[in-house]
């Protein structure tokens, strides 16, 4: 079962994409985008994992002790916080769309008619 993380990654990506495409509500769409983002976090951390090794923190463990990869953890860490603000930006777009058009249904948002 060593390919299980990749299967979960592909599953989360596919299910998030299905949510975005089949959604009737702009806010629901934004949250499905958050699911797609979380699939990339799982992928990155699963790439850097080494079996039976510790975290890359060397406070109690001596300096040379085996640890998992810190580079992918650094990438994922900043990504998690920054994508929260991007989700906030998309939600403010949805609020403005609701104020202008009165609807949150993406099928009913038409191009501005003059």
């Amino acid at each position, binding site marked *: 079962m060593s390919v299980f993380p990749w299967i979960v990654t592909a599953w989360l990506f596919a299910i998030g994409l299905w949510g975005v495409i089949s959604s009737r509500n702009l806010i629901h769409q934004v949250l499905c985008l958050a699911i797609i983002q979380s699939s990339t976090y799982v992928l990155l*951390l699963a790439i850097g994992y080494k079996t039976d090794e510790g975290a890359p923190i060397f406070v109690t463990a001596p300096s040379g002790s085996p640890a998992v990869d810190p580079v992918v953890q650094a990438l994922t860490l900043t990504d998690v916080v920054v994508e929260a603000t991007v989700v*906030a930006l998309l939600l403010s777009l949805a609020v403005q769309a609701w104020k202008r058009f009165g609807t949150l249904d993406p099928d009913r948002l038409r191009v501005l008619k003059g």
Partner: protein
Amino acid sequence: MSWLQMALLTLVGIGGWAVVATRDPLRQAIMLSLYGGLMAGLFFAFQAPDVALSELVVGAVVLPMILLLALTKVRGRAE
């Protein structure tokens, strides 16, 4: 791959489907909060405490808060 990691990966897969399948955004906020907690557990099992801390505070505090504020704003005139 240990049993804990496999169980958490399965739960994360089920949680992702649950967040997408919940159509009402208000309930989806609670589901997203739980999903954030599950992801934090998964990251901890992958020996990544920094990322787990980050995902926990963002997924359980900030995202549902912003979501609930936006939802309360659009509650007035439901189409």
